[in-house]
C-alpha cells in the first residue's frame, strides 16, 4: 500500500514535523514554522496539492506560541486533502512571522493579507502585505482574542486616491478591477 500523506511528509522532513493526526481521512501535519514553505513546496510538487483552499489563522490566547497558521490543501488530481499547521508568535502576539506561500499558490495572496489584517501575523516575502478588510488607519488586529469586543475605532475621513492603479484591495493582477479603474486591462500579459 502506498504511503499516506503524513508518512511521506514525515519521511521527507523528520525534524520539522511536530505533530500529526488524521481523523475521518483528514490529514493534519503540524510543522515547525521555519520549515513552513519547504513543506508546502513539497506538498505542491511531490504530493500534487494543486490547490490552496484556504489559509487562515487561529488565536490560542495563553498558549505560546500563540497563533496557529493553517493552510488547507486539496489535490484535484488525486482527490486528497491535507492540512498544514504552524505555530508562531509569543504570548503578546509579537514576532509572529512566517514565510509567505504566495510564490507557490496565487490564492495565498489575499488569504495572507486577511490573516495579517485580522491577527497580525506577518508573512515574510508577501508582495503586497496591506490590510484587506479594514482600513489603513485601523489600530490593532480585530480577531485577536484580546481585542476588546466593544472597542469603537474613530471614523476616518474621505480618502482621495491619486494612484488609481492600486485601489485597495484590488490590484490589477489580483482580480477584476472596477470602481474608478479603467476596464481596458490586457489579459494574459503576466
Amino acid at each position, binding site marked *: 500500500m502506498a504511503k499516506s500523506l503524513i508518512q511521506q511528509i514525515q519521511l521527507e522532513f523528520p525534524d520539522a514535523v511536530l505533530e500529526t493526526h488524521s481523523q475521518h481521512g483528514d490529514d493534519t501535519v503540524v510543522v515547525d514554522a521555519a520549515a513552513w514553505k519547504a513543506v508546502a513546496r513539497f506538498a505542491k510538487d511531490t504530493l500534487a496539492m494543486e490547490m490552496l483552499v484556504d489559509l487562515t489563522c487561529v488565536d490560542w490566547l495563553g498558549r505560546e506560541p500563540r497563533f496557529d497558521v493553517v493552510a488547507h490543501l486539496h489535490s484535484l488530481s488525486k482527490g486528497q486533502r491535507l492540512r498544514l499547521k504552524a505555530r508562531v508568535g509569543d504570548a503578546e502576539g509579537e514576532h509572529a512571522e512566517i514565510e509567505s506561500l504566495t510564490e507557490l499558490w496565487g490564492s495565498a495572496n489575499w488569504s495572507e493579507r486577511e490573516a495579517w489584517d485580522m491577527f497580525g501575523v506577518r508573512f515574510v516575502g508577501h508582495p503586497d502585505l496591506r490590510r484587506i478588510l479594514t*482600513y489603513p488607519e485601523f489600530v490593532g488586529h*480585530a480577531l485577536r482574542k484580546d481585542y476588546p469586543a*466593544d*472597542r469603537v475605532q474613530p*471614523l*476616518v475621513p474621505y*480618502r482621495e486616491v491619486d494612484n488609481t492603479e492600486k485601489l485597495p484591495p484590488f490590484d490589477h493582477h489580483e482580480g477584476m478591477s472596477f470602481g474608478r479603474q479603467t476596464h481596458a486591462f490586457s489579459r494574459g500579459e503576466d
Partner: protein
Amino acid sequence: MGELKKPSTQEILETGQGQGFATTKFSDLLAWAQKYSLFMYPFVTACCGMEFMAVSSPRFDHSRFGAEAPRFSPRQSDLLWVVGTIVQRQAPILKRIYEQMAEPKWVLAFGTCASVGGFYDNYACVAGIDKIIPCDVYIPGCPPRPEAVLDGLMLLQDKIQSGDRRPGIVKPRFDPVTRPDMGVVQLRRSKHG
C-alpha cells in the same frame, strides 16, 4: 346636502375643486410640492435591500407617495435612503454622498442597522448613520415591514409639510401583546399551556 362646508386650502389643493384659485402661504405650497416629489437616492448596502425592493414593487408601491423616481446621482435627489449596515470603511463615502446632494435634502434610515447599528456591535460597523450624517426618520425593524416603511415615508411627508427637522421614529402600528388574536402570541400560549 345640508350645511355647506368651506373646504380647506389643503383640500382645494389636493382635490382640485374650488373656484380656480386658492390662497396659501408660499412656504406651504412649496412644502406641499416637495413632499410629493421626493426623488430618492437608494444607498443600499445589505439585506434590507430586499425589503426595499418589496416596498418599491407594485404591491406596496411607494410611488403612490410621489417618491417614485430613483436617481443614482446625489445631485438630482432629495431623499437619501440608507438601506442596510454601514461599516467604518464605508462611512466617508456615505458622508460624501450626503454632501453632494443639493438642498433641500432628507435622510431616511431604513432598518435597525442604519438606525443604530443593530446587532453588529463590533469593530467594523458604525452604530447608526447619525454618527455621520443628520437623519430625519428612523425606521426600526430587521428588516422593517413594508407597512412600517410607508409609515416612515408618510411621517417624513408630515415633517416636510410642517417644516419640522427633528428626527422621528416610526412606531409600530400595534403592540403584539395587546393583540391576542395575533398568531404569534396564540402560538406561545398554546405551547406553554
